[in-house]
C-alpha cells in the first residue's frame, strides 16, 4: 500500500511539479559525470581531458533529460489512454451490451440530474441578478411584509446600496381580446430593477424615476415565458399596451429566458408591475396590496452583519412614525440563494432530499445490473484475462482497464442522461399544476452546480459498475480459474448473487416508500373535508381595483347570489371571502381574546373566514347548536360569529359558549366584540392533512374589507349538474370586468391534493422503476445460473430427478436471494422510512404494517415470476445431449 502511495506521489510530482524532478535529475547526471571524472583523473588524464572524456561517454545530456521526462509522463498518460482506447474498442465489439448498459445508466442519470435541477432551481440557485452574491432578503419584526411607506423610509435611509420591495400575493385581471384572465403579477417598488439588475431579452426595466408610485405608472415588464406563450413571441411587443384591471399598461421590456425570480421556489410570476394607485389605491394606509417583502443589495464591501446593523438602525429611527411596531427589530437578514433557502421551506426541502435519495438508489440498482453484465462478460473473457496476466499485466493494470470500461459506460450514460433531463424538465415546466404562478425550471447545462453534480455521478457510476468486476478479476481463485479449470458449481454467495441481494433490498425500501405515499394519497382522498364536495361548485371572483366600495361590493355579491339561486337545479347559493382547502382558504389568526363582561382572556389560534348568509347550508356544513348567518346580520347590527367544535373544545371546555361575547381582532385596532351564535361541525381549512384546527366564521357584512377577491358558492339539487360556464355567465352579466373562475368543488380542491398526488406520482414511479430494475437483475442471475448448470441438471435428470424437482431447485436458489434481500431491506426500511412520517396524513405512520406486509408480498411475488421465466429453461434440458456436451 505504501508503495502505491509512493508511486502516486512520484507521478503527481512529475506531472505537476516537473521542476523539482528535473532538478533532481540534473543533480544525478552531474554526480555521474563527477564520478567518471574522478576515475579518469585517477587513470592519469588531465582535468580537462577527464571532463571531456566523461561527457563523451555519457552522451548528449539534454536528450537524456528529455527521455527521462517522457518516461515519467508517458508511463501514466499512455497507460490510461491505452486502456481507454482498448476498453472502448472491446465494448463496441458487444454493441448489445453497450446499448443496454448505456441506456439504463442514461435513464438513471436523467432521473438524478432532473431531481438535482429541481432542487437547484427551488432551493439553491440565486436569482438572476447583477452580482447576486450581494443580494439579501430581510424581514422586519415578526412579519414577512412591510407597508409601502415603511419600505420608503428604510430605502431612503441609505443603510444598504439599494432596497426594493415586491409582492406576488395579489392578482390582476388581464383583459385579452375575448376573455378576462386573472394573473398573479409581481408588484414591485419603482427601484426594483435598479436594485436587482436582471438581464433583458428585449427592452429594459422601469427606472425608479419613471415608475414613482405617486405618478401612477402604467408600465409593465414581461417574463420571457409570458411573452412566448401568451403573446405568441410578438416581435413588436415593446410599446404595446396590455390591459390590466381595465387600464392600459405599456410593455417596456421582456426579461431574458434564464431569469429566475427573487420569489424563489421556481415560482415565476408572469408580469412585473410597478406598485401604484391602480393596484393599491391607498399607498399610505394599511392596504394589504401596498405591502411588500424586502430584498436589498449590500454596499460593495459591506458584510452581512454590517448590513443588518445598518437596517436595524434605520428601522429604529423610522419606527416611532408607525402604529404597528414591526420596524423595531430585524427578524431575518440573510443572503438570497444557497443552503439557507432550505430552512425557509423545510417540508419541501425534506421532500426533495427524499427524492434525491430515491433517485440515487435507482442509480445504485442500475449500476448493480451493469456490474452483473460486466461480470458475466468477464467470465466469458477468462482466457483473454489469463493471457494478459501471463504477459505481465499487473492486477493494478487489469483493474485500471476494467475501471476504464466502467468510465466509458458512465460517461456515455451521463451524456444521454443529460439530454433526457432537458426533455423531462421541459415537460415539468409546462405541466399544468394548480399553483398561483407557473413554475420555471431552468435546465442549464452550463450551470456549475449541475456540472459538478454530473461529474460526481460519473465517478460514482464508474466505481459502482467496475468495483465488482475488479474484485472478481483480481481474485486469486479467478487467476486459477483463468487457467481453464472447469467452471465449478459456483459458490452460492458469489459476487453476482450479493449484488442481487443488495438490489432487492434497495428496491424494497424504494417500493415501501412508494407504497406509503400511495396509501397516503388514498387516505387523504378519503379524508372528510367537513363539507360537501359532490354537489357544490365554487366561483373565484377577482374584481377590478377601485370598482367597488366595501358596501357596494356586498350589494353586488347579494345580487349575484340572488341570480344564482334562480338558476334551475340550484338549491342554495352563498358567498364568502375564502374557500376552504383552496389557495385562498381564509386567514390564520393568533390573538389574545378577551371574554366580554369578565376579566377572562385566552390565547387563541384559529382559522377564520368571512361568509354570507346561507353559507353553511350551501357548503353542507352542519350547525350543531344555535344558528348560521341570516340576512339580518348586517353592518351596524350586533356582531355575530359561528365557531367550530374544536374552538369550543379548546377554549370553552365543558361550557356552553352560545350567547358569550368575545373580542376578536377586527376592523378597529382594539378589535370588536362578537357574540357566538352557533357551533358548526369541524372541517379542514388549509390542508387535508392538517391537525384539527379551531375555526371562526365571521359575518361577511360585518367584516367586509378591501379585498378585491371573493368566492361564490352554489349547491345543486341531487342529480343535477350545472356547467361551470353557465355559472360564469350569470356572474359575468353582473360585471363583465371581473375575472371569474368557476370549478366544481372537487377540482377546486386540486391544490389540497397536490402534495400527496405529487408525492405518490413521483415516488410511485421511482418505486416501480426500482422494482423493475431489481427484477431485471434477478432474471439475469437466474438465467445465467441455469445456463451454467445445464450439465448438473442433465446429470440430475439422468439419475431420475423429476422436472418439478429441478424447477424447485432453481427457484429455491433464486428465492433464497430474494428473501435475503427482503429481510435486509425490511430492517433497513424500518430505520430509513421513519422520517417520512412528516409527509403522511395523521393516522398513517411510516411503520404502517399494511405497507410493510404489502410491499414484501408484492416483491416476493414479482421475484418468483422473474425467476420462474428463466428457470423454465432448466426444464428444456435434454439429459442425453447435455451429458454428451460435457
Amino acid at each position, binding site marked *: 500500500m505504501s*508503495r502505491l502511495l*509512493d*508511486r502516486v506521489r*512520484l*507521478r503527481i510530482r512529475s506531472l505537476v511539479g516537473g521542476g523539482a524532478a528535473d532538478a*533532481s*535529475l540534473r*543533480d*544525478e*547526471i552531474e*554526480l*555521474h559525470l*563527477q*564520478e*567518471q571524472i*574522478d*576515475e579518469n583523473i585517477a587513470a592519469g588524464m588531465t582535468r580537462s581531458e577527464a571532463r571531456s572524456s566523461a561527457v563523451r*561517454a*555519457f*552522451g*548528449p*545530456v539534454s*536528450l*537524456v533529460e*528529455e*527521455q*527521462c521526462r*517522457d*518516461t*515519467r509522463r508517458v*508511463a*501514466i498518460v499512455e497507460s490510461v489512454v491505452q486502456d481507454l482506447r482498448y476498453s472502448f474498442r472491446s465494448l463496441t465489439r458487444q454493441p448489445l451490451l453497450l446499448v443496454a448498459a448505456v441506456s439504463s445508466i442514461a435513464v438513471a442519470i436523467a432521473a438524478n440530474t432532473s431531481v438535482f435541477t429541481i432542487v437547484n432551481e427551488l432551493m439553491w440557485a440565486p436569482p438572476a441578478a447583477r452580482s447576486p452574491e450581494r443580494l439579501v432578503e430581510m424581514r422586519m419584526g415578526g412579519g414577512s411584509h412591510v407597508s409601502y411607506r415603511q419600505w420608503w423610509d428604510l430605502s431612503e435611509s441609505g443603510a444598504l446600496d439599494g432596497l426594493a420591495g415586491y409582492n406576488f400575493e395579489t392578482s390582476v385581471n388581464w383583459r385579452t381580446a375575448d376573455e378576462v384572465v386573472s394573473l398573479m403579477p409581481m408588484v414591485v417598488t419603482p427601484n426594483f430593477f435598479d436594485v436587482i439588475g436582471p438581464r433583458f431579452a428585449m427592452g429594459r426595466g422601469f427606472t425608479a424615476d419613471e415608475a414613482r408610485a405617486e405618478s401612477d405608472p402604467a408600465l409593465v415588464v414581461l417574463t420571457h415565458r409570458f411573452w412566448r406563450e401568451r403573446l405568441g413571441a410578438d416581435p413588436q411587443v415593446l410599446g404595446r399596451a396590455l390591459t390590466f384591471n381595465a387600464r392600459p399598461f405599456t410593455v417596456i421590456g421582456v426579461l431574458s429566458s434564464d431569469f429566475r425570480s427573487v420569489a424563489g421556489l421556481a415560482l415565476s410570476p408572469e408580469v412585473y408591475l410597478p406598485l401604484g394607485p391602480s393596484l393599491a389605491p391607498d399607498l399610505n394606509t394599511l392596504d394589504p396590496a401596498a405591502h411588500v417583502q424586502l430584498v436589498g443589495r449590500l454596499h460593495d464591501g459591506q458584510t452581512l452583519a454590517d448590513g443588518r446593523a445598518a437596517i436595524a438602525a434605520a428601522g429604529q429611527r423610522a419606527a416611532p412614525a408607525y402604529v404597528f411596531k414591526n420596524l423595531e427589530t430585524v427578524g431575518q437578514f440573510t443572503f438570497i440563494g444557497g443552503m439557507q433557502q432550505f430552512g425557509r421551506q423545510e417540508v419541501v426541502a425534506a421532500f426533495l432530499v427524499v427524492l434525491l435519495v430515491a433517485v440515487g438508489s435507482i442509480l445504485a440498482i442500475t449500476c448493480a445490473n451493469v456490474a452483473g453484465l460486466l461480470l458475466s462478460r468477464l467470465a466469458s473473457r477468462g482466457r483473454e484475462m489469463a493471457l494478459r496476466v501471463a504477459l*505481465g499485466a499487473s492486477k493494478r493494470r487489469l483493474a485500471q482497464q476494467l475501471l476504464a470500461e466502467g468510465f466509458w459506460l458512465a460517461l456515455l450514460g451521463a451524456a444521454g442522461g443529460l439530454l433526457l433531463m432537458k426533455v423531462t424538465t421541459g415537460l415539468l415546466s409546462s405541466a399544468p399544476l394548480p399553483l398561483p404562478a407557473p413554475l420555471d425550471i431552468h435546465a442549464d447545462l452550463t450551470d456549475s452546480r449541475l456540472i459538478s453534480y454530473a461529474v460526481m455521478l460519473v465517478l460514482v457510476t464508474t466505481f459502482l459498475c467496475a468495483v465488482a468486476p475488479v474484485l472478481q478479476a483480481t481474485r486469486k481463485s479467478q487467476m486459477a480459474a483463468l487457467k481453464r479449470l472447469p467452471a465449478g458449481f459456483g459458490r452460492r454467495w458469489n459476487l453476482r448473487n450479493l449484488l442481487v441481494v443488495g438490489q432487492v433490498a434497495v428496491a424494497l425500501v424504494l417500493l415501501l416508500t412508494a407504497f406509503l405515499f400511495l396509501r397516503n394519497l388514498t387516505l387523504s382522498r378519503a379524508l372528510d373535508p367537513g363539507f360537501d364536495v359532490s354537489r357544490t361548485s365554487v366561483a373565484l371572483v377577482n374584481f377590478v381595483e377601485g370598482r367597488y366600495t366595501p358596501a357596494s361590493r356586498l350589494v353586488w355579491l347579494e345580487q349575484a347570489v340572488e341570480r344564482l339561486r334562480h338558476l334551475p337545479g340550484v338549491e342554495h347559493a352563498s358567498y364568502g371571502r375564502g374557500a376552504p382547502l383552496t389557495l385562498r382558504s381564509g386567514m390564520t389568526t393568533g390573538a389574545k381574546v378577551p371574554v366580554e363582561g369578565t376579566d377572562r382572556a385566552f390565547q387563541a389560534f384559529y382559522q377564520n373566514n368571512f361568509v354570507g348568509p346561507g353559507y353553511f347550508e350551501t357548503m353542507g356544513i352542519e350547525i350543531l347548536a344555535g344558528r348560521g348567518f341570516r340576512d339580518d346580520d348586517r353592518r351596524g347590527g350586533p356582531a355575530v360569529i359561528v365557531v367550530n367544535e374544536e374552538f369550543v373544545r379548546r377554549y370553552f371546555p365543558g361550557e356552553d359558549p352560545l350567547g358569550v361575547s368575545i373580542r376578536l381582532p377586527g376592523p378597529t385596532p382594539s378589535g370588536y366584540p362578537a357574540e357566538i351564535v352557533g357551533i358548526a361541525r369541524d372541517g379542514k381549512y388549509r390542508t387535508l392533512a392538517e391537525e384539527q384546527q379551531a375555526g371562526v366564521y365571521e359575518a361577511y357584512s360585518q367584516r367586509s374589507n378591501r379585498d378585491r377577491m371573493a368566492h361564490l358558492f352554489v349547491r345543486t339539487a341531487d342529480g343535477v349538474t350545472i356547467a361551470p360556464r353557465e355559472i360564469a355567465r350569470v356572474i359575468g352579466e353582473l360585471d363583465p370586468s371581473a375575472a371569474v373562475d368557476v370549478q366544481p368543488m372537487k377540482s377546486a380542491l386540486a391544490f389540497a391534493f397536490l402534495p400527496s398526488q405529487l408525492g405518490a406520482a413521483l415516488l410511485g414511479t421511482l418505486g416501480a422503476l426500482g422494482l423493475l430494475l431489481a427484477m431485471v437483475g434477478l432474471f439475469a442471475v437466474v438465467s445465467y445460473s441455469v445456463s451454467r448448470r445445464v450439465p448438473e441438471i442433465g446429470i440430475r435428470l439422468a439419475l431420475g430427478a423429476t422436472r418439478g424437482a429441478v424447477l424447485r431447485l432453481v427457484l429455491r436458489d433464486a428465492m433464497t436471494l430474494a428473501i435475503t434481500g427482503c429481510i435486509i431491506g425490511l430492517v433497513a426500511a424500518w430505520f430509513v422510512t421513519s422520517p417520512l412520517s412528516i409527509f403522511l396524513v395523521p393516522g398513517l405512520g411510516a411503520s404502517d404494517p399494511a405497507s410493510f406486509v404489502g410491499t414484501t408480498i408484492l416483491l416476493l411475488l414479482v421475484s418468483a415470476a422473474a425467476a420462474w421465466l428463466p428457470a423454465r429453461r432448466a426444464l428444456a434440458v435434454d439429459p442425453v445431449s447435455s451429458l454428451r456436451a460435457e
Partner: protein
Amino acid sequence: MSRPSDLIQGTLDLLILKTVALEPRHGWAIAKRIQQMSQDVLQITQGSLYPALHRLEQQGWLKAQAGVTDSGREAKFYALTAAGRKQLARELESWDRLSTAIGLVVREAE
C-alpha cells in the same frame, strides 16, 4: 524520441535489475558494474541508462533512496523492490528460455 527495440530495452532492464540485486547502487556505479562484469564487452552509452532507471522506478521495480558514494558524495541510490525481485526472476527465466532456444537453433544450423 527514438525508442530502443523491445529486445534491447528488455535486456538493459535485466542487466540493471541484476546489477542492483546485490546492493543498492547509484547510476554511475551501475554503468561501471555492467561494464566490468561483462569484461568491457557491453559498452552502453552511459546516458541511456537513466531513462531506463526512471522507467523501472515508475513501474515500481526499483525504488530510490539517498546514499553516499565511495568518493563521499551524496547520491540517489537505486534499490530493488520486492516486485522488482519477482520481475528479475521472470526476466531471468525468459532470458534462459530465449538463450537456450537461440542456442538450439544456432547449433542445429551449424
